[in-house]
């Protein structure tokens, strides 16, 4: 019996094999969304927990495990963003931004961070993947379970919301 079939039948060894094959990829995808390595580790386990529970709904013949796991990981990351939305502090291991004029940079960084973290979670998710991580719209669409056109709409709305928020915070961001 194939690995995916054994997994769908509830074989724990098959699940372990799939976990070991895909954990790095699920973690890498998740950390790019939540931008916190500790949370991404927990969410990777959460993702595979959801995968394991949903094994009965996975069709080994037609299914693409990688895409399925990524979609579940995206949903888990989105749930995390929803719960963590009020949080305004970045984790300690967040990559450091380059510094110019310290005062101006710090001010801008704080306002940008605040505006970005205040975005509704579904917009923040697509904005992170599209604007920061340069993921293709099709990849984002597959992971979120929406059409590429809707991804584009969400990115557009996220940009508009961010610009408005930044302008309201006194930061002018205009088209060049």
């Amino acid at each position, binding site marked *: 019996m194939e690995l995916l079939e054994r997994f769908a039948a509830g074989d*724990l060894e098959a699940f*372990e094999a799939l*976990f*070991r094959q895909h*954990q*790095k990829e699920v*973690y*890498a995808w998740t*950390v*790019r969304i939540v*931008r916190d*390595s500790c949370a*991404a*580790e927990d969410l*990777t*386990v959460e993702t*595979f*927990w959801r995968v*394991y529970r949903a094994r009965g709904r996975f069709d080994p013949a037609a299914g693409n495990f990688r895409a399925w796991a990524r979609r579940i990981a995206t949903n888990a990351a989105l749930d995390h963003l929803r719960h963590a939305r009020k949080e305004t502090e970045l984790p300690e291991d*967040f*990559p*450091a*931004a*380059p510094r110019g004029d310290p005062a101006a940079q710090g001010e*801008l*960084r704080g306002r*940008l*961070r605040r505006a*970005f973290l205040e975005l509704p979670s579904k917009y923040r998710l697509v*904005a*992170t993947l*599209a*604007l*920061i*991580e*340069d*993921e*293709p*719209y*099709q990849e984002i669409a597959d992971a979120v379970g929406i059409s590429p056109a809707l991804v*584009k709409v969400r*990115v*557009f709305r996220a*940009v508009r919301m*961010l*610009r408005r928020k930044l302008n309201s915070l006194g930061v002018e*961001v*205009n*088209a*060049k």
Partner: protein
Amino acid sequence: MTEEMPDPNEKELRALLKREFPPFEEAELPRDLWPGMLRRLDAQPLRVPWFDWALAAAVAAALLLFPSAVPALLYQL
């Protein structure tokens, strides 16, 4: 890279965001997560034994058949 040409209105914001939130190009998993997964699998949710459900069903059936037993049951509680 995105296949679509970015909206010019996005360009400045995109650059600002990337400066403040540098992309994770190669996010390496720091450790094997399988031990944590096993702990999660072992932590089964609290399950009510079948005989508890059977007992509850029997009590419910008895109360439906003999409503006069309700005060007596409440008195015992």
